[in-house]
C-alpha cells in the first residue's frame, strides 16, 4: 500500500491502524521524511538560509558599487581567503567576481530561495491542510523533490570553489557569453550552474506534478473547486506554470551543456571572434534561440514568484479584516487568466534584440492584457479592506504593505512592457528597481506575513509582536530607500551591468554625478535592511522555544481547514475525516454565533 511512511507499518497484517507506529529515528524523521509538513519545514529552513546568503552576496556587490575598487571591509579578507588570491586579490571585488556574485545572487534568490519558500515551504505545509488531505498524493516523490532541490543548491554553492569561480553570465546565462569556455577547464562555474539547474528543474517537475495531483485528487468531501481557499488556487496555477514552463529551460540547458562540453554550436553563430581570435566552432547556431527558451521559462517564472504571494496575502488579509473577501470568484478567474497569458508574453524581455515591429506589437499587447487580471486581484484585495475591522498584527501589517509595494512594482512594469519606452529603459537600473519592487517588498513581505501567520500552527507558539512590528517598520522603510533611488538612476540612463557603479559610464558621457551618490544611499539602506532582519531572526528562533503559547488550535479565529487540525498537526493531519461545509472566507455571517464560520464546522 502506498503508505505515507513505510516505517510506520511494522505489521502488514493490520492495515486499519495508521498511527500506531514507534517513534522514527532522526534520519527518517528529519532527513528522509515523507510527511508534507516536515518537507515543508525542510524547504523553508533551507530556502531562508539561501535567502540570507543571496542577501549577503548583494551587500558585497552594493559595497563595490558605492566604493568602486576599494577593499571590502570585514568580508574582504574572508573572500580572499576562501576564494583565493587570483579571484579576490586584497579583498577587492573585481569585475569578474562582481559578475559572478551578480549571476549567483539572481540564481540563488530566484531558484533557491523565493520559489522554494513559496511553493516548497508554504505550498507543502499549507496546501494539503487547506484542502483537508492527509498528505500529498505522492509523499515519496515529495521527498525526492526536496532532495533534488537541496543537491541543486549544493552544486550551485560548490561552483564558487571551482577553478575560475562560479557562473558569471548573469542569472539568464545568455549565450554566447556563457558558452565561451576555457577548453582546458570544461567543468567550470557555468557547467556547474547548468548541472545545478537540471537538478532544480527535476525538483520542480516532481513538486508540480505532486501539487496538481494532490489538489485534483485529495480534496476532502465538500471541498468543491469554488470552496478552495485562494491560496490553493494560486498554488494550483503555479504548479502548472512550473510543470510546463521549466522543461524548455531544461532543453536549453542541455543544449548549452552540449555547447560547452562537446563543442557543438546550438547558440553560437558563424564567424564569432573572441578577444581578437576566431572561435574554433562550426557555428550555425542562434544566440536568440537561448533567449527564447530562457524567457519562455523566465516569464512564467515571474508569476511563480508572485502568485503564491498573492495567495498568502489573501489568506492573511481575509483573516484580519473579519469580513468576506470581495470578489473571490473574479480573483480565481484572474489567477487562471494570468496563468494562461504568462505563456505568451515572454518576448517583452527581448525588445532590444531587434525583433520586427509586428512581433513587438503582439507581445506588447499580451503584456498589457496580463496586467488586467493582476490589477483585478490587487483591486479585490483593496476593496476587501473597505469597512473591515482590521486587526493590525505583524502578519497583517506585512500583508497590507504588500499591496502598495507590489502596486509600485507592477505599475513601473508598464513602461517596460511598451516596446518604445522599454528600448530606453531596458539596460538601465530602472529594470532592477521594477523587478525588485515586485519580488523584495512584494513577494518577501508576503513570505514574512505567511511566517508570522502560520507560525502558531507549525510550532504551537506565537511570534513576538513587538519584534515583529520593528521588523516590519524597518523593512518597509529601508526596502523603499534601497529600491526607489534605482528608478532615478535608471531614468538618468545608468547602465545596470557595470561593476564600478557607473563611474566609467558617467565619466565618459558626462552624466550627472549626483546619481552616483545614490549608490551610497542604497548601500547604507541595504545595511539598514540587513539590521532590520535581526529582530526577525531572534524572534524566529526564540519563539520556537519561548514564544507565547497558542491558546487554541485556531488562535487567529480563521475559517480555513488548516486551523481545525491539532497544533502542530500530527502525521496524517486530521483526527476525523474533514468535511468542507461552506466557502473559505465566511466571516461575520449574519446570524452566526461568532464572527467566523469555519469551513469544517457543520453549524
Amino acid at each position, binding site marked *: *500500500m*502506498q*503508505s*505515507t511512511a513505510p516505517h510506520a507499518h511494522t505489521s502488514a497484517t493490520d492495515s486499519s491502524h*495508521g498511527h500506531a507506529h514507534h517513534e522514527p529515528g532522526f534520519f527518517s524523521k528529519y532527513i528522509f521524511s515523507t510527511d508534507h509538513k516536515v518537507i515543508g519545514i525542510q524547504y523553508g529552513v533551507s530556502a531562508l538560509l539561501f535567502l540570507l546568503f543571496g542577501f549577503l552576496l548583494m551587500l558585497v556587490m552594493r559595497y563595490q558599487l558605492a566604493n568602486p575598487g576599494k577593499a571590502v571591509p570585514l568580508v574582504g579578507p574572508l573572500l580572499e581567503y576562501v576564494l583565493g588570491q587570483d579571484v579576490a586579490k586584497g579583498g577587492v571585488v573585481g569585475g569578474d567576481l562582481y559578475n559572478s556574485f551578480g549571476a549567483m545572487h539572481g540564481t540563488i534568490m530566484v531558484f533557491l530561495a523565493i520559489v522554494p519558500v513559496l511553493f516548497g515551504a508554504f505550498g507543502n505545509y499549507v496546501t494539503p491542510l487547506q484542502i483537508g*488531505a*492527509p*498528505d500529498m*498524493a*505522492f*509523499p515519496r*516523490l515529495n521527498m525526492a523533490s526536496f532532495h533534488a532541490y537541496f543537491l541543486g543548491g549544493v552544486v550551485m554553492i560548490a561552483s564558487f570553489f571551482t577553478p575560475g569561480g562560479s557562473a558569471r553570465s548573469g542569472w539568464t546565462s545568455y549565450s554566447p557569453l556563457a558558452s565561451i569556455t576555457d577548453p582546458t577547464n570544461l567543468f567550470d562555474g557555468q557547467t556547474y550552474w547548468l548541472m545545478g539547474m537540471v537538478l532544480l528543474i527535476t525538483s520542480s*517537475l516532481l513538486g*508540480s*506534478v*505532486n501539487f*496538481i*495531483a494532490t489538489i*485534483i*485528487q*485529495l480534496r476532502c468531501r465538500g471541498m468543491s473547486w469554488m470552496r478552495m481557499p485562494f491560496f490553493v488556487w494560486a498554488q494550483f496555477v503555479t504548479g502548472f506554470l512550473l*510543470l*510546463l*514552463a*521549466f*522543461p*524548455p529551460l*531544461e*532543453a*536549453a540547458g*542541455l*543544449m548549452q551543456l*552540449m555547447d560547452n562540453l*562537446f*563543442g*557543438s*554550436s*546550438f547558440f553560437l553563430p*558563424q564567424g564569432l571572434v573572441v578577444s581578437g581570435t576566431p572561435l574554433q*566552432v*562550426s557555428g*550555425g*547556431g*542562434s544566440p536568440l*534561440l537561448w533567449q*527564447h*527558451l530562457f524567457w*519562455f521559462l523566465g516569464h512564467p517564472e515571474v508569476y511563480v514568484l508572485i502568485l503564491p504571494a498573492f495567495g498568502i496575502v489573501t489568506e492573511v488579509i481575509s483573516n484580519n479584516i473579519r469580513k468576506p473577501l470581495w470578489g473571490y470568484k473574479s480573483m480565481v478567474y484572474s489567477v487562471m487568466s494570468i496563468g494562461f497569458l504568462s505563456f505568451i508574453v515572454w518576448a517583452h524581455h527581448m525588445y532590444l534584440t531587434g525583433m520586427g515591429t509586428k512581433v513587438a506589437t503582439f507581445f506588447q499587447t499580451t503584456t498589457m492584457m496580463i496586467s488586467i487580471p493582476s490589477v483585478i486581484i490587487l483591486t479585490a484585495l483593496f476593496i476587501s479592506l473597505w469597512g473591515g475591522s482590521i486587526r493590525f498584527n505583524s502578519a497583517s501589517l506585512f500583508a497590507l504593505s504588500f499591496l502598495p509595494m507590489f502596486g509600485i512594482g507592477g505599475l513601473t512594469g508598464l513602461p517596460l512592457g511598451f516596446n518604445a519606452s522599454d528600448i530606453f529603459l531596458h539596460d538601465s537600473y530602472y529594470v532592477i528597481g521594477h523587478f525588485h519592487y515586485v519580488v523584495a517588498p512584494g513577494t518577501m513581505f508576503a513570505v514574512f506575513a505567511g511566517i508570522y501567520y502560520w507560525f502558531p500552527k507549525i510550532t504551537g507558539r506565537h511570534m513576538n509582536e513587538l519584534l515583529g512590528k520593528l521588523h516590519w517598520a524597518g523593512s518597509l522603510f529601508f526596502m523603499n530607500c534601497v529600491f526607489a533611488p534605482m528608478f532615478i538612476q535608471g531614468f538618468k540612463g545608468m547602465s545596470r551591468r557595470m561593476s564600478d557603479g557607473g563611474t566609467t559610464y558617467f565619466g565618459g558621457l558626462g552624466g550627472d554625478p549626483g546619481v552616483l551618490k545614490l549608490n551610497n544611499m542604497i548601500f547604507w539602506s541595504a545595511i539598514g535592511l540587513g539590521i532590520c532582519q535581526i529582530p526577525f531572526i531572534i524572534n524566529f528562533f526564540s519563539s520556537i522555544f519561548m514564544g507565547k503559547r497558542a491558546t487554541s488550535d485556531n488562535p487567529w479565529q480563521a475559517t480555513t481547514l488548516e486551523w481545525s487540525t491539532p497544533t502542530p498537526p500530527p502525521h*496524517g*493531519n*486530521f483526527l476525523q*475525516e474533514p468535511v468542507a461545509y461552506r466557502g473559505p472566507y465566511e466571516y461575520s455571517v449574519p446570524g452566526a454565533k461568532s464572527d467566523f464560520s469555519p469551513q469544517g464546522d457543520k453549524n
Partner: protein
Amino acid sequence: MEIPYTYKARPDTGLYNAKVGIWLFLASEIMLFGALFSAYILLRVSAPVGFWPDVGLAWPRGLLNIPIGTFNTAVLITSSVTVVLAWASLKMNNFARFRVYMVITVLCAFAFLGIKSFEYNDKFSHYVIRLQDGKALTGHIEVDGKHPRFWNFSDQWSVAKLATQKVTKIKVEMDPERDMNGHVKAHGSHDHEVREVAVSDIAFMGSYTPATHPFFAVYFLITALHGLHVLGGALVLGYFAFPGAKMWKSNPEQFINRIEVGGLFWHFVDLVWIFLFPVVYLL
C-alpha cells in the same frame, strides 16, 4: 488517515492518483521535447546557405540511414502493441501471458537501443573533409588501417591531431554521390571508391558528431534523450515483469494500474519517435 485514491478511482474525477500524475508528467515531457523540436526548426530555417559542403543546401539531408530508421520504428511500434497486450492479459487475469508480452516489450526496447548504437557508431567514424582546393568529400575514414570506433574518444581525428601523430595519408571510403536533395544518385561517379588523401591537402575534417554541424548536435541530443527515455522505460517495465510482479498477489488492482501507467509512458516514448523519425530522418 491513509492517502485516498492511491489505486481506486476518485468518483468525481474518475481517476486514481498515479494516472493524474503520469498525465501531468507527460505534459511536461511534451514541453521538453517540444522545445527541442522547436530548436531544430529554428536552427534549420536560419542555417546559412552553403553551410554543409556535401550538398549545396544549408542543411544536411539524407545523411541518416532511412532503412534502419524504418526498421527501428517498426520495432518500437511492436513494443507499443505488446505493452497494451500485456496490460489486457492482466485485465483478463492471465498472468503468464502478461509476462510473455512484457518480456517481448523489453526485448524490443533493447533491440531498439542496440540498433541505435550501431547507427551512432557509423556516424562517429563518418567524416566530412574539405580540401585545400575547396572541394569536399564525405565517407568513412581509415587511419593507419583502422576504422575509428565510437566508444573510444581518442579515435576522433582532426587535421591538427593527424599532424601531431605524423600521419601523412588517410584512406576515405567515399559515400555514393548525392543530388541536391540529398538523394543518392542511381549511377554515381564514385560508388564505393576508396580514395587516398594526403593530410597536407586537407583544410578541415570533422566526424558526423555535434561539433561538426548543428544538425548532428540536434540529432544526437534528441535521439540520446529519447534513448534515455527508452532505457528508463525498459528498466521500469522489466521491473514490473519480474521483481515488481509480486504485487499481483497482494494487490492486483494496483498492479494493473502500474502497468497502465507504465504503458502510458511507453506509448509516449513511442510517440516521440513517431515524430522524431520523419522530422530528422525523412524531411
